């Protein structure tokens, strides 16, 4: 019989505590949540035993919000208030979405991101996505029986900065602590047990509901290095449905349809597509609202010819990704299929034909992304320490700046390994100029109009000088989530000019607060309660991080005086956190951060030193 471990009263068990962390696949069609339990990554089921949560949100007539299967049932009856495939609109303007005629929504053009008018008011795609994430968060907390430490949320590798930022905003709105945004193909690679035993070049072919991604990875001893990525953020399984839908309209010679009939036939098209995965032909029958009966038969050969052009559109990004990685088809050791749409036989045939080998398909293509995200979440939450697994991902699209004549100058080339930073110098063109605007673009083309505008960053607080005298160094930093931040510094004035840089997209702190408040009743009291709650969570996280750092390196890297100072600031923060003043807590957090700056730098130096220790010490000691 195993002996029970009993800890001393007051002795913390924190270091061994298993932190609840999940991986979330926020998909166009379906979303999933997974976690690592007893060393195994598993998808969490809802009460009815479903793994997949349809990414559908319904705003009901009586002011409720339904998510998933119940919402899906309302698609045909209440299409304008039932938002399907919201991921296609995340971080996108109306112009990016393309043809909206087949969509039943009332779109509202807004700067930065399109919004949708529903009976519950005008909703941002961020808010709609947050409803899906909230549902998954609740599911996870119910199944796991505790509050989540954090989540890894997956995004298509080909998502640009605005789409990534919107995803992160949605997670914040859902009350999730985002450990990392992880690219879907990379997540799939992890899940595929491409573990320490697999080495070589792998291609991940990810055809989701609304996006197509291809990533090429090199695996070496637990290091997953993304060499290149490419894709088409407006191509997915939904397009195959739409081909069938258009075919139905053509065959049945139908007049323009009302929203309910459109939705009905789109559903029939989707069912036919799924049926054709395992059957030679599909019957499509429907009764439209005016009583007209549709009765058609679609066979596989016809379906293949309808969608041949879509399949070809997936091959061009593969060729480009191989070329960017300087690789040939023969160098590829394995191909992983991701996304429900890869179940279609013609997709498998096309992939096999292109690579001259059968793809790996032993994991459920719907679950593989969430399973991989859960593994990464478990590592990032600190539940595994013996780990060698490391992901090195890349930026999918080049970042550039607008220059004279509407041209784009590349600042960060695509497929650069993250994190990456680049500095660029600017000057003023007017005497006494104190502000300037920098237009940041993402894409590969030469003209501003052909790239996606990420918005203008405003630089304010430039010290007034003669025209051309200021030397402003602007640094573009892309972090491990693939998110851009811009900072600026005036070089000549000597004084550390505090230049404020603000992007014109993404949600501001105020917008997030007001969206959060909209879901509460008594605004003012909640605002304070929430600020206090957030400050306490920050304080607890910081204290835990510093305690862990001190346990490891406090004795070796700090002298008595430094240790005393840090201990004093920690005590101060603990005291403040017991009081009710969120400002005081935030100040104490800042003070503790300040007191540990040197310690952080020394710890980093020590780990760099250790990384190559014993290998070539003589060169290192130079």
């Amino acid at each position, binding site marked *: 019989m195993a002996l029970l471990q009993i800890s001393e009263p007051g002795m913390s068990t924190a270091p061994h505590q298993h932190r609840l962390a999940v991986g979330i696949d926020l998909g166009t069609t379906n979303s999933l949540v997974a976690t690592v339990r007893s060393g195994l990554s598993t998808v969490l089921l809802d009460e009815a035993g479903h793994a997949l949560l349809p990414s559908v949100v319904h705003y009901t007539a009586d002011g409720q919000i339904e998510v998933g299967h119940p919402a899906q049932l309302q698609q045909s009856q209440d299409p304008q208030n039932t938002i399907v495939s919201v991921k296609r609109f995340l971080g996108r303007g109306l112009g990016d979405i393309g043809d909206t005629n087949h969509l039943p929504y009332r779109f509202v053009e807004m700067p930065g991101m399109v919004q949708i008018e529903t009976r519950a008011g005008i909703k941002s795609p961020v808010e709609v996505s947050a409803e899906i994430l909230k549902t998954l968060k609740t599911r996870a907390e119910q199944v796991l029986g505790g509050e989540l430490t954090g989540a890894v949320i997956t995004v298509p590798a080909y998502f640009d900065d605005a789409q990534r930022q919107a995803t992160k905003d949605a997670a914040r709105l859902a009350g999730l602590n985002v450990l990392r945004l992880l690219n879907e193909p990379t997540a799939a690679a992890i899940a595929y047990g491409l573990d320490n035993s697999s080495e070589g070049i792998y291609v991940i072919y990810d055809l989701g509901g609304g996006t197509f991604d291809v990533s090429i990875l090199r695996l070496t001893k637990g290091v997953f290095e993304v060499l290149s990525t490419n894709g088409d953020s407006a191509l997915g399984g939904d397009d195959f449905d739409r081909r069938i839908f258009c075919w139905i309209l053509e065959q049945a010679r139908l007049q323009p349809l009302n929203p309910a009939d459109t939705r009905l036939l789109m559903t029939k098209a989707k069912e036919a597509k799924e049926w054709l995965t395992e059957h030679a032909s599909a019957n499509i029958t429907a009764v439209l609202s005016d009583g007209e009966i549709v009765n058609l038969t679609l066979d596989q050969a016809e379906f293949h010819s309808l969608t041949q052009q879509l399949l070809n559109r997936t091959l061009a990004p593969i060729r480009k990704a191989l070329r960017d990685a300087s690789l040939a088809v023969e160098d590829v050791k394995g191909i992983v299929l991701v996304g429900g749409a890869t179940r279609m036989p013609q997709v498998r045939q096309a992939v096999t034909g292109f690579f001259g080998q059968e793809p790996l398909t032993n994991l459920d293509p719907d679950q593989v992304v969430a399973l991989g995200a859960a593994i990464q979440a478990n590592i990032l939450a600190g539940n595994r320490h013996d780990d060698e697994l490391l992901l090195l991902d890349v930026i999918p699209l080049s970042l550039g700046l607008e220059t004279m004549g509407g041209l784009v100058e590349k600042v960060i080339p695509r497929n650069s390994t993250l994190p990456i930073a680049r500095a660029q110098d600017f000057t003023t063109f007017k005497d006494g100029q104190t502000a300037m605007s920098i237009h940041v673009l993402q894409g590969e083309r030469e003209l501003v109009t052909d790239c996606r505008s990420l918005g203008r960053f405003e630089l304010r607080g430039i010290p007034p000088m003669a025209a051309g005298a200021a030397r402003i160094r602007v640094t573009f930093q892309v972090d*491990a989530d693939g998110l851009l931040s811009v900072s600026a510094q005036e070089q000549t004035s000597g004084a550390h000019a505090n230049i404020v840089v603000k992007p014109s997209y993404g949600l501001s702190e105020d917008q997030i607060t007001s969206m959060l408040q909209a879901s509460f009743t008594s605004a003012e009291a909640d605002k304070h309660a929430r600020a206090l709650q957030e400050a306490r969570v920050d304080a607890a996280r910081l204290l835990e991080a510093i305690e*862990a750092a001190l346990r490891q390196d406090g004795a070796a890297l700090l002298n008595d005086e430094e240790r005393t100072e840090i201990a004093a600031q920690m005590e101060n923060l603990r005291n403040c956190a017991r009081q009710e003043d969120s400002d005081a807590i935030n100040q104490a957090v800042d003070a503790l951060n300040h007191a540990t700056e040197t310690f952080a730098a020394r710890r980093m130096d020590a780990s*760099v030193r250790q990384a190559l220790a014993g290998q070539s010490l003589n060169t290192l000691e130079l």
Partner: protein
Amino acid sequence: MFNIQQNHFELFGLPARFAVDMALLDQHYRKLQAEVHPDRFVAASPNERMQSMQWATQVNEAYRTLKHPTSRARYLLQLQGVDTEEESNTAMPADFLMLQMEWREAVEEAFDDGDVTALDALLKDMREQAKILEQALADTLDRQHAWQESADIVRKLSFVDKIRSDVELKISKLEDE
């Protein structure tokens, strides 16, 4: 004390030479990233997260510089205080200019014909030319320490790099159609 500003070769524990053991470079790169990458610091204090991002950025920058022959040679010359003047100095020997012009003409012709195979063949020629220049650099940089001569070769190599990336862009344009 380690310093984030130290030179790229020191960072990877490699001798400052043009001839680099690529396997060792890759291996040390991964070892360093395994220590400093932001994924290792998700739960750490904001200071450590900031440090981690700066270090990981620097390690990536250093790796990228040393991995590619042209940037590695340029960087070695920079350490010697030699500017390769790639923007300002466009003087080239006549035979090299002739080769450039021939390539440009052949590339335009193949592109107008939509001939990807011909473009691929041209890319292969260019890769071979680049290899010859890289071999010359190994000699002028590592053995002769002939910095000015090396700078001349880097300028040529950077011409070849540019036309190669032009061809790659053209191929991808053709494949899009």
